[in-house]
């Protein structure tokens, strides 16, 4: 299945039906004595998407929707329970093996919390130089050898300049920097090995808005200058709208809608996407209220049958409660997983009797 628009850029990342299940069962003895079954948490359940060279795919969803698990699957921090992920045609499993080292150099990650992702006892120079040491051989193969201390120092200087810090900063410790500056250090470290693909897991969620603006602008500049490809994960739709080319919406471990940014914000199809867009506090909506959104994200250990969104969906009917909708193209090439959209019953008046959790 090919996913997304007809643009001809090369496909960099191809995720097919990827799943990650966690066994959260009680210990064996408890299961036997208390007659409890095994419990499987389906954190990611059959997710497919592609990312083209040089584009930004935004992934949004609420806590527990599986966004971060997808990120960790992509860098090989979790193993797949099912399906496949390939980056440049190479399976992601190879990242853990020696022959995956050259791929690993080109896939880097930026984490949410710049306080937790930098070693507090290392100087900034050492933090940024570490990937250069680890990937010395791969960098030499790629034509940018960094062999000795002087070359490393030079490269770190250049990287710090690239993210808007000064060369003198490499002798400082992380605690001497503000949150925004630390996130710049994380970005410099991720860029150290000349990667092609950056996975950004909520990179600005821990930052103040004015600092967030600085980091988002920096990330856009770097993408333009270095031709980077991003997977940008965020719970903030406005941020995703600002950076992404295409947007995927996740709910309960599945992608419920995946479309070009323009169409998803202009014409959201899935009721969950509509609800999310409606829920964002808006600067221009001073004064009068809005229709409140009902219900909460279901317990992932015991997700609802059929479409996992049906208990909160004003349009749900019997089919939604039993049959899982598949992600498929609607009209143009926007993908949506909703029975109501395809049956054309979504613009009906919401059914007031539908159960709200």
């Amino acid at each position: 299945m090919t996913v997304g628009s007809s643009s001809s850029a090369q496909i960099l990342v191809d995720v097919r039906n990827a799943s990650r299940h966690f066994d959260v069962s009680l210990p064996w003895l408890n299961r036997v004595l208390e007659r409890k079954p095994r419990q499987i948490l389906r954190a990611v359940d059959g997710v497919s998407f592609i990312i083209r060279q040089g584009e930004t795919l935004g992934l949004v969803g609420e806590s527990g929707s599986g966004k971060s698990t997808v990120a960790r699957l992509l860098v090989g921090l979790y193993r797949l329970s099912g399906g496949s992920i390939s980056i440049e045609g190479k399976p992601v499993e190879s990242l853990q093996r020696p022959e995956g080292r050259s791929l690993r150099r080109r896939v880097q990650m930026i984490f949410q919390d710049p306080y937790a992702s930098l070693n507090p006892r290392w100087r900034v120079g050492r933090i940024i130089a570490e990937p250069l040491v680890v990937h010395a051989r791969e960098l030499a193969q790629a034509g940018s050898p960094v062999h000795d201390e002087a070359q490393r120092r030079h490269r770190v200087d250049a990287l710090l300049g690239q993210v808007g810090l000064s060369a003198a900063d490499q002798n400082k410790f992380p605690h001497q920097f503000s949150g925004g500056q630390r996130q710049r250090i994380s970005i410099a470290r991720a860029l150290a090995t000349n990667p092609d693909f950056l996975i950004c897991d909520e990179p600005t969620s821990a930052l103040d808005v004015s600092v967030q603006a600085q980091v988002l602008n920096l990330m856009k500049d770097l993408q333009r200058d270095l031709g980077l490809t991003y997977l940008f994960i965020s719970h903030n739709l406005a941020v995703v709208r600002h950076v992404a080319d295409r947007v995927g919406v996740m709910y309960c471990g599945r992608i419920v809608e995946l479309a070009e940014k323009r169409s998803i914000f202009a014409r959201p199809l899935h009721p969950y996407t509509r609800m999310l867009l409606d829920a964002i506090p808006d600067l221009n909506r001073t004064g009068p209220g809005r229709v409140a959104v009902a219900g909460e994200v279901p317990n992932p250990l015991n997700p609802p049958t059929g479409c996992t969104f049906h208990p909160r969906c004003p349009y749900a009917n019997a089919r939604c409660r039993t049959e899982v909708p598949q992600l498929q193209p609607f009209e143009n090439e926007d993908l949506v997983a909703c029975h109501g959209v395809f049956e054309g019953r979504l613009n009906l008046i919401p059914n007031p009797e539908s159960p709200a959790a």
Partner: protein
Amino acid sequence: MTAPLLEVRNLRVEFPSRRGSLLALDDVSFSIAPGEVLGVVGESGAGKSLTGAAIIGLLEPPGRIAGGEILLRGRRIDQLSDEQMRHVRGREIGAIFQDPLTSLNPLYTVGRQLIETIQTHLPLTAAQARTRAIDLLQSTGIPAAAQRMEHYPHQFSGGMRQRVVIALALAAEPKLIIADEPTTALDVSIQAQIIELLKRLCREHETAIMLVTHDMGVIAETADRVAVMYAGRLVEIGAVSEVIHRPQHPYSVGLMGSIPSMEGELARLTQIEGSMPRLNAIPRGCAFHPRCSRAFAPCNRRRPELMQSATSLAACWLLDASSDQAALTLTGLEPLGST
């Protein structure tokens, strides 16, 4: 105009340290009318939460109020003893904090915590307090309230827990609620529910709210007026639509521009260069001048006070009639920035 419910006059909060004291709040003055929602915004470290903590008398030592007055219905509350303050807190001023899990006692049932709060402040019997507690839970939209009374905080989801905290804050019918980032720990869809709930309950009970948050969207939808803080000072205060659409202070302008919007297409967000100064290195004159693109002569020497601009009050020399171009020419000063 009615008398203000809360009046804060020239509030100063200090943190004494070995190397001299740090001034965390400097000359902050504002008032809240009965039933009004005042939003307080600013970046981390601007002093938003500290203002709230000073009002309810919960400053962490060694922080202390070093000057100014806090008046609740005309009565000074900043000099009350701890015991007297305990009766004001909860009864007259309620509080809602960011993390609902840390504001509830994990070892007591929700019902017990509600009943205890109600009986502390209101002369009710246990049975009456129980009925009131169930009513409160119901009014905050918790289904099956009577059964939920027997549950412990960990049995509630994040959004439901924040509803319990709101019920607790409203338990003794206070006239003012200090809500410190009440929705920051919640998902967007739950956040929308909690904002609606706060607005509805405050309308019904005519409760005023001081809403501290860094989320301008939340402020826009909830507040009547908004105060913008920077480095321990109030830099702008005015009606919410005024401050959002016609910010007067350059910091407010930058703050509004840096928010990714859901409308319009922007190639780049406005960014304010640099970051908020540390408390031990607050610049002389206007604390914002090193980051301000419009800084000019007086900014690094004299501190601007709040002055009238359009319908808002803002602390910026650009708005001072006596520092306009004519006055500058007179004193031989040239504007430094791109004014």
